[in-house]
């Protein structure tokens, strides 16, 4: 009997780990039912563009547990695979965004500190926080993640919002994640910098920013040298004071970490180049919009570059019949410059420059239209695809894991119903890290002005600012399917265009700028419309102030 018992307990003992295992499995189960039944997929009989110019017809690609396990025309399909019939489908490598805010949430602007000593503000107000990391601003529920993914992007080099030196960028994978850490592929891959001054404090504009950059860099050189000497032999040497801001520069000083300069304009790019020539860091020009004259320099120096996908609107010639020759000429010249913007990638291509693209300043919905615009202006489809995939991967040094559809690389792919840059095709699936995201054909966007009749018309507004009560008029109209408007000047200034004008679910918002002694000040107005009344708040982020803004719609027309 005794023996029997012992036997049983021995058997129980053997069962114990199994029980634990069972519990563990239960813990991993997904009561929401969202988890896929399998992480193995086979897209069969598809046109597979492994890399620009490398096309397999009637081929199959297998994704298994987040990686491409095989691709080709003679591939056996695993029994546990979900099979997607790829007949009429086109498979491309997932797109890579060279520089964007995708996934990041813009933090509330810092209030102006009391008794701010403007010549030497605290670093966070000055916008000098290179020691920060973008991960702190990332939110898994940020719309831009799914928005960009739906338009083909699978990886983004995301940089933080802020001013002169907001912090480091990270490579994030555009998956649905529960925890923001899950999004980060590589943290701290770049030092992000831009020409944005602190409102009313040093450095206030490009002048101070350039000088501050030099000063920080040269002190970082000294500080790094001091720290290195101290680390090797501290005896008899002053102890170096710790400075996280300067320490963030150390890998930049040694060219181990690239500096990503948001240099959208020609002059900004030239200034970034100027600093690079003086100080000798590893420069990447990001968000470049006006770089056509810089192609020889970029080629010669091997400077890395991500061109902006945020293209200007095509200018429209006035319709008047009796246009003067002068107006005609001015329209032609404006068109000449529009063409320079949309042929920038062609200029780079012709100069033999390998470039990527950056979506900063644009939205997912505009990506395809803008890519088609570039192609219509001479960029080959292969070059366009290269910029979105393999070139971006090489520039970001992740071409060993992504950028092409080769076995062993990440299962990041875009699958469209036709050649991807065809106007009629649409993206049906996007795979990120082997997870399937499926999309239906987008309904033709209904006019955004639809349902906006409630706000179209003439309004009389009243602003109660610390300067007193002012009134003026704003006119909201419909223009080619969207809302547009003008607002009469505050402080007696000229009329301003209402920008980012939206009316959704009774909420009307817009912004406009006015000129304060040569410097543009932006006012954002957000509020609700009830009948003919608009009750809103106007805020000036630059001064961290807001005040009531109300308006009444004029009866009649």
């Amino acid at each position, binding site marked *: 009997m005794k023996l029997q018992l012992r036997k049983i307990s021995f058997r129980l003992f053997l069962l114990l780990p199994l029980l634990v295992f069972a519990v563990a499995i239960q813990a991993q189960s997904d009561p929401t039912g969202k988890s896929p039944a399998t992480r193995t997929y086979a897209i069969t009989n598809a046109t597979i563009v492994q890399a620009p110019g490398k096309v397999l017809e009637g081929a199959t690609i297998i994704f298994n547990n987040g990686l491409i396990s095989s691709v080709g025309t003679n591939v056996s399909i695993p029994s546990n695979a979900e099979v997607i019939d790829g007949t009429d489908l086109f498979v491309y490598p997932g797109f890579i965004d060279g520089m964007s805010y995708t996934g990041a949430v813009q933090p509330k602007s810092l209030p102006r500190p009391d008794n701010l000593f*403007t*010549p*030497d503000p605290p670093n966070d107000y000055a916008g000098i926080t290179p020691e920060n990391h973008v991960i702190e601003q990332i939110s898994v529920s940020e719309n831009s993640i799914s928005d960009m993914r739906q338009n083909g992007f699978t990886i983004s080099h995301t940089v933080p919002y802020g001013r002169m030196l907001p912090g480091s960028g990270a490579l994030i994978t555009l998956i649905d994640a529960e925890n923001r850490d899950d999004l980060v592929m590589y943290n701290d891959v770049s030092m992000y910098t831009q020409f944005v001054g602190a*409102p*009313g*404090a*040093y*450095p*206030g*504009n*490009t*002048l*101070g920013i*350039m*000088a501050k950059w*030099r*000063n920080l860099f*040269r*002190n970082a*050189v*000294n500080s790094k*040298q*001091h720290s290195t*000497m101290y680390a090797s*032999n501290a005896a*008899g*040497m002053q102890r170096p004071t710790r400075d996280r801001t300067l320490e963030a520069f150390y890998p930049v000083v040694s060219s181990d970490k690239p500096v990503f300069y948001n240099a959208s304009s*020609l*002059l900004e790019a*030239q*200034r970034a180049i*100027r600093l690079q*020539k*003086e100080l*000798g860091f590893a420069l990447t020009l990001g968000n470049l919009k006006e770089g056509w*004259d810089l192609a020889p320099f970029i080629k010669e120096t091997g400077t890395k570059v991500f061109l902006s996908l945020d293209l*200007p*609107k*095509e*200018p429209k010639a006035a319709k008047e019949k009796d246009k003067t020759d002068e*107006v005609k*000429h*001015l*329209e032609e010249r*404006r068109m*000449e*410059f*529009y063409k320079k*913007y949309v042929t920038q990638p062609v200029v780079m291509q012709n100069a033999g420059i390998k470039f990527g693209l950056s979506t900063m300043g644009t939205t997912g919905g505009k990506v395809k239209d803008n890519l088609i615009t570039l192609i219509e202006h001479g960029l080959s489809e292969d070059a366009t695809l290269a910029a979105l995939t393999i070139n971006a991967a090489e520039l970001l040094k992740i071409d060993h894991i992504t950028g092409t559809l080769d076995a062993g690389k990440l299962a990041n792919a875009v699958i469209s119903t036709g050649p991807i840059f065809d106007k009629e095709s649409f993206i049906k699936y996007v795979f990120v890290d082997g997870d399937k995201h499926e999309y239906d054909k987008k309904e033709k966007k209904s006019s955004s002005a639809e349902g906006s009749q409630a706000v179209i018309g003439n309004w009389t507004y009243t602003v109660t*600012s*610390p*300067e007193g009560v002012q009134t003026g008029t704003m006119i909201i109209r419909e223009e080619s399917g969207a809302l547009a408007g003008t607002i009469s000047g505050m402080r007696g200034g000229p009329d301003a265009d209402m920008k980012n004008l939206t009316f959704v679910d009774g909420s009307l918002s817009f912004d406009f700028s006015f000129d*304060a*002694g*040569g*410097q543009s*000040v932006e006012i954002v107005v957000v509020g609700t419309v009830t009948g003919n009344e608009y009750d809103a708040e106007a805020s000036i982020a*630059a*001064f961290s*102030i807001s005040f009531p803004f109300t308006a009444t719609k004029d009866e009649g027309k």
Partner: protein
Amino acid sequence: MKQFNMYKTIFLTALLLLGATVAQAQVKKGDVLIKNGTLLTISQGTMENTDLLVKDGKISKIGKNLKAPNGVEVVDASGQFVLPGIIDAHSHIAGTSINEGTSQVTAEVTMEDVVNPLDISIYRAVAGGVTAINLMHGSANVIGGRNETLKLRWGSTNPDDLRFEGAPRTIKFALGENPTRGGRARGIQPQSRMGVEAMLRNAFSDALVYKKAWADYRADKNKRKVAPEYDLRMETLVDILDGKILVHSHSYRADEIYMLMKVFTDFGIKKLTFQHANEAYKVAPELAAFGAMASVFADWWAYKLEVYYSTAYNAAILTKNGVTTSINSDDGELIRHLFHEAAKTQKYGDLSDDEALALVTLNPAKQLGIDHRVGSLEQGKDADFVIFDKHPLSTYAIPQRTFIDGVKYFDIDTDAKDQRIFIDPESSIEVVQIFNREDQHKCMDDADLVYLNDLLNNN
């Protein structure tokens, strides 16, 4: 000997790189023969029916019956007047920012960083015979940023192409109402003229301490020495003390002009030009004794309290007292007819033709330290000149052609209406206006932001 002095290496590398930048920016140099013009040489009187030969951007010969080498363009200037290119010693065109007004000493900033080669005002100035300008920092702070001497080589989108290569560095100081207004708006020093002087003395005293700290460091034989903090602001102030940077100080009143000369005497700084200097005529002998120069308006005043006590005789009085004087524009419109501004000194003060023309040519060149290169028509100097149809001191004179380095940048016969080299494709098309009221306020550009803030927070 083997000691690894990293800082020296860094600075040498930076210098080398800087040199490389200058060498890279290859500006165009031209060859041309100007025939039979009346040459207003400024330094050697007027030469009638004389030729001027330009080779590789320099004046290679001045004389009669010169022959053009093969292929060199000949310009017939019969009955016309050739003047050295006009130089504006005080301008704010071609800059995207003017003031870093957030701090009252910003010696570390430089207009070199914000040169805007796309500014259409450059072409307008060239059409008015101007070939070089002093692109100045604004007057919002006591010690503003470094200025940048530019040649108006219109047409390039590269800021480096506009730099006056080899010109000495200059810096902007400001006295009186503008910097004290900024100080009061921010609740920082200086809020009075006394505060301005105190700030100047403090800044230079700090610079002396900084200079000594680095001198001690360099002299230290210890291999494990630790460098003092690097400060670009102090580096610049030390260079001023060492006479390597020429000071151009915004000023109006005689008392503040005299104050700055006393401060500079105490610190041994010699290279000084007063800008605006509407009351300089009151201290003209003192300026001459110090060796200070003055750059003034012909007849512009009364736009604020400190600028009421003014006279159109200012330039003439200074000139007759031996003060090297220039007339500047400080304005995107006035810059187009500086020769008229110079002519006013003949009505107000009876200056000779050469004296009047020197106010906008050789004298501003001296104030910018570039008179060995430009400012007069002499063999070996840069071929920067303008051809007028009438004598430039005549009300009827109109510039016909403007050359810089022997390259023609303006020709009235081929002057297309639209000279812009950069256009915003999203801009709306409006009636083009030459007069832009904004230009009149450039001196306090970017500085008004805080002024506005001050207003809004005024409970």
